[in-house]
């Protein structure tokens, strides 16, 4: 049964989340990540004479590498706790979710452990990402034709 009296009393002793502060931190950390990304792209274009598209791809690979490395070294989760979800919104969050699942199940072996659990969190993103890509691709095709 739902106890309204209990709910009312509990409401009075509810934890007050610092939503504004958290959002600001996430905004700043996300922006900082974007700034680093832009720096990497500019560096690659300037140093290796890449096209902007290629440089962006390399930047993503570099981000995935460092997010995975920091997760494996055990401090990426602490950074996220501190600087909030700004660190998770870019591609790093995806890498982080896969590597953390992977690490959790490394003792169960490569098949029953890492293999079957790696996509525990990322699986939904991949599945619905692919499905929606197909769906919207289809709409675009039906409306606009090929090309």
């Amino acid at each position: 049964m739902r106890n309204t009296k209990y709910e009312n009393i509990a409401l009075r002793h509810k934890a007050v989340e610092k939503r504004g502060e958290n959002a600001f931190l996430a905004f700043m950390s996300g922006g900082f990540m974007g700034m680093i990304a832009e720096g990497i792209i500019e560096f690659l274009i300037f140093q290796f004479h890449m096209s902007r598209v290629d440089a962006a791809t390399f930047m993503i690979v570099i981000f995935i590498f460092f997010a995975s490395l920091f997760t494996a070294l055990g401090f990426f989760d602490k950074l996220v706790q501190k600087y909030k979800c700004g660190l998770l919104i870019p591609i790093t969050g995806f890498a982080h979710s896969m590597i953390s699942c992977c690490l959790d199940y490394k003792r169960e072996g490569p098949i029953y452990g890492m293999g079957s659990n790696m996509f525990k969190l990322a699986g939904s993103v991949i599945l619905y990402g692919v499905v929606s890509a197909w769906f919207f691709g289809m709409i675009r095709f039906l409306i606009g034709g090929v090309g």
Partner: protein
Amino acid sequence: MTFYYKNVYIEDTSTIVGPYEKKGPLRKYFDKTYSDLYFGEKSFEKAEVKIVKDAFVMIMKKLGIKKEEIDIVIGGDLLNQITASCYGSVGIGNGFVGIYGACSSSALGILLGANFIENGFSKNAACLVSSHNMTSEKQFRYPTEYGAPRPDSATFTATGAAVCFLSNEKTDVRVECATLGRIIDYEQNDPNDMGKVMAPSAIDTLKKHFDETGRTPIDYDLILTGDLGIYGREILKDYMMKTYQIDLSYNYNDCGVLLYDLENQKEVKAGGSGPVCSALVMYSKIYDMLKKKKLKRVLFLATGALFSPTFLYQKENIYSICHAVSLEVV
């Protein structure tokens, strides 16, 4: 459902803790502390089994007894199939009872052990509880290395193992009575606010205990709940006062709040949780104070959330349960 005991005593306790509890205010009361979460083992699950074994070794060393001299082992933890208790208790005692009461297992273990002893079925009982922050994170929440920011109302599963050794031989501290709780459904469904989930069961058992024994909070030097955290603690106090006019303002506290230094250990958020959280506070500092006769009678309410991630995803509520044990100086 209150049982009275005349012949059940606490012979000794043992407490083994991990790094977060080591940094807490009760550090000097623990028997053994570790600085990392693996304890020299290869996985967190094996690490939990290791501290369970450590807790048994410690209690046997303290009492100077052998494995075979323990009559009954009653053990509970949070892992699936209560693995830590089963694997850690192998070869110890002459009988094993595995229990699951989530975080209420500590009081449930004492209650069952006391019933065995009071009725003369056994001479002694070792009541074990354990939990490990990382194994329960993995089982109930996110992967251990996954950095999902947690809200301030969330609690932190304590790492440790604790044994309370009950016997029919007279010592300074006795188990005086115990109230068995029932499962409560207040339509709670936020796994990040366990204090609010479990407070209704604490309210129910506390009220039942006072009704059945005819006592009031004044009859106890200290009333402790298991792991309601700072917010759950205030809900309980407020609700008891407003609904039943039972004033808990001067001799009530919560083990989850006492186990950590909430000011400096920000990662624990609202406080500690897990079966071992209440046991670590009770079997260390509180037991010590009872032995030194600084406290005369303590009521200990271990609260447990019967939380299943599967059922939560299937839109079921989280139920809770709470058992009460009263300890008294002889």
